[in-house]
């Protein structure tokens, strides 16, 4: 790599890091204003997220779905698509995984588990294919489409789980996942931990590597990125833009479905209504924070997982209201989105802004 390239990479890293630091500073000012001790609060935040191995495992467990949803948003974005529907794709993926994982008896694990995961991915992919198709063939804007598909997914899953597939008991949930389809948890392997961190996290790491490989080392990835940069230019270069748009949506949706499948098979071991606190939407923030790069997404997911779990600990041990975590997340996203502010503070020495 040339020296300038290295400098560019460092600069790319500086924006999210600067945003995080500024976010924490703003958070500290707010805490001072309401009479809380920011040092104590941030200490609790850090201890809650990384204080011991068990807490660290829980942070990874909270990050896992965000890796998938972050990748889903990032992949679509690389094709110039803003997939707001990851939450809905996550729901249908979870539903498919819960159904196949909970009801297909008599299969050995080596067949049942992959089949269940594939069912989740297929459901998410198909759900996203609809807005992708409408965008490619009819020019319907994917933002509107995917949002609407979210509402359909909520209502559908709400109805199915509360009425049709409901397991006995008060809580609206499906029957437990059969042992032949579960993702093994850390808490089941070692006795020092009761964490629900599952090997879904490793699948997340593998997904990051695969998405990186697909985007930058394959023809499909090249074509997807070309369409993202300029559909017309890509078309002129002999790429079928419409087909790539549908493909990108399907892959994005499959990643969303995988996020749902991991929650159902590893973390909750059933589809419990309300299981997602908005993983799909947090994924948008994670992708933004990670500059739509798989490595960035991984780091962004870890940060958001840490903020969430650390925030819970802060809620337990200090008087700082837990809503502050939401403010912190929002401020960090604000500074990432408004990266011009960071660029003013860390100005670029070279003047050639135009480079991609």
């Amino acid at each position, binding site marked *: 790599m040339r020296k300038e390239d290295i400098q560019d990479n460092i600069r790319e890293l500086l924006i999210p890091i600067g945003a995080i630091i500024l976010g924490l500073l703003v958070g500290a000012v707010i805490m001072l204003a*309401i009479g809380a001790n920011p040092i104590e609060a941030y200490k609790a935040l850090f201890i809650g997220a990384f204080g011991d191995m068990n807490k660290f495992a829980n942070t990874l467990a909270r990050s896992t779905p965000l890796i998938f949803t972050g990748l889903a948003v990032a992949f679509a974005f690389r094709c110039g698509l803003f997939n707001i529907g990851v939450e809905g794709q996550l729901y249908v993926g979870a539903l498919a995984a819960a159904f196949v994982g909970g009801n297909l008896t008599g299969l050995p694990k080596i067949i049942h588990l992959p089949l269940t995961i594939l069912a989740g991915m297929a459901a998410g992919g198909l759900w996203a294919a609809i807005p992708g198709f409408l965008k490619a063939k009819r020019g319907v804007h994917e933002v509107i489409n995917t949002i609407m598909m979210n509402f359909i997914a909520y209502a559908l899953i709400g109805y199915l789980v509360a009425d049709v597939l409901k397991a006995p*008991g008060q809580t*609206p949930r499906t029957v437990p996942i059969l042992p032949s389809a579960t993702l093994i948890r850390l808490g089941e392997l070692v006795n020092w931990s009761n964490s629900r961190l599952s090997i879904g996290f490793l699948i997340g790491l593998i997904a990051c590597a695969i998405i990186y490989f697909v985007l930058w080392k394959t023809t499909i990835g090249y074509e997807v990125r070309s369409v993202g940069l300029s559909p017309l230019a890509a078309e002129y270069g002999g790429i079928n833009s419409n087909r790539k748009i549908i493909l990108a949506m399907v892959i994005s949706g499959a990643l969303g479905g995988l996020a749902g499948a991991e929650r159902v098979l590893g973390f909750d071991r059933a589809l419990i209504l309300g299981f997602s606190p908005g993983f799909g939407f947090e994924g948008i923030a994670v992708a933004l924070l990670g500059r739509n790069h798989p490595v960035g997404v991984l780091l962004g997911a870890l940060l958001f997982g840490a903020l969430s779990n650390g925030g819970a600990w802060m809620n337990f041990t200090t008087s700082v209201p837990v809503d502050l975590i939401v403010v912190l997340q929002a401020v960090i996203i604000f500074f990432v989105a408004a990266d011009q502010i960071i660029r003013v503070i860390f100005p670029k020495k070279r003047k050639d802004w135009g480079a991609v």
Partner: protein
Amino acid sequence: MFKSKKLVLFLCLLLIGTMFLTACGGGAEDQDQTQQPAQDNQEPAKDEKPLQVGIVLSTGGKGDKSFNDAAIAGLEKAKEELGIEYKDIEPREMAQDEESLRFLAEQGMDLVIGVGFLMEEPLRTVAQEFPDTKFAIIDAVVDEKNVASLTFKEHEGSFLAGALAALMTESNTVGFVGGMKIPLIEKFEAGYKHGVEYINETEGKNVNVVSAYAGTTGAAFNDPATGKELTLSHISQGADIVYHASGGTGQGVFEAASEKGKFAIGVDSNQNWMYPGTIIASMLKRVDVAVFDTVKAVKEDTYKAGLTVFGIDNEGVGLTDLANVTELEKSGVENDEAKIATMQELKDKITDEVKAKIKEIEDKINSGEIVVREE
């Protein structure tokens, strides 16, 4: 690396901006303080370590002026009368329920309470991990040696609400708004409908019930906008009294009823003061009593694991005072004379015959002459 002038300028802007933000938020914070006295740091007594109680509320439930606030009210009473200390946690997401219960158990709390049926499985897991800690759960049954399960006969109280609504309605249509569509809330609906049917049979009326639910997740208990929509829809179908069993969602029910000049029946806590002149009565679910009794039992060393059911017979459920404005209602409106008068005016509309009928029904439920259906 950076130009310090611009940085200073920027930080100044940031500071001003955030101060502005927090200044705006100040008012809301003060209001919250009155509802969340639990956040106060309490000095432990010097001579004797007071009883420590931990409570995990339902997600989004604090300040619902209904179910969760009733649990807090019970602990407040215990704090005053028994000198205990408590810590409350309201998890931000469902997955943190288990972690929250575990944290409280790890802190060596004498009693850990889980509020709401969603706590069932997390509480079972944690109770097994800490066999020497005492637990209590509200609205669910956890069959462990160290768990006291506290449930309510919501259908009995709702029967009274249904009877009252059927006796008072002028349009011969009454409404029901449920929170999350689950067996527990359907119990409220079943009792309410049964109460209406009973009045239809015994008084020769022809009242029908329109009902709707706000959703299928826990969020349906904290969704006033949907509550308002559903109530407006009920009113457009002719309902003039709407009963709700929907936690914080009920605030939308009251708002709609008040705007349209119709009436409502509150739930869980005494909500009559929230919209003076609109809320005829509230169906009390004495979560505060259940919580207080359990804390007291731990304090007096008479705590027993197992199931306790609260019904009309042990005053676990029932209607608020139908004749006079109570002290609690007066303090709810901060002793505002005009509002107290409005509330009394509404109560005066309830005739002695209606009051007698409600009393008669209570007795019949107690004696087993009326068996209220649960579904």
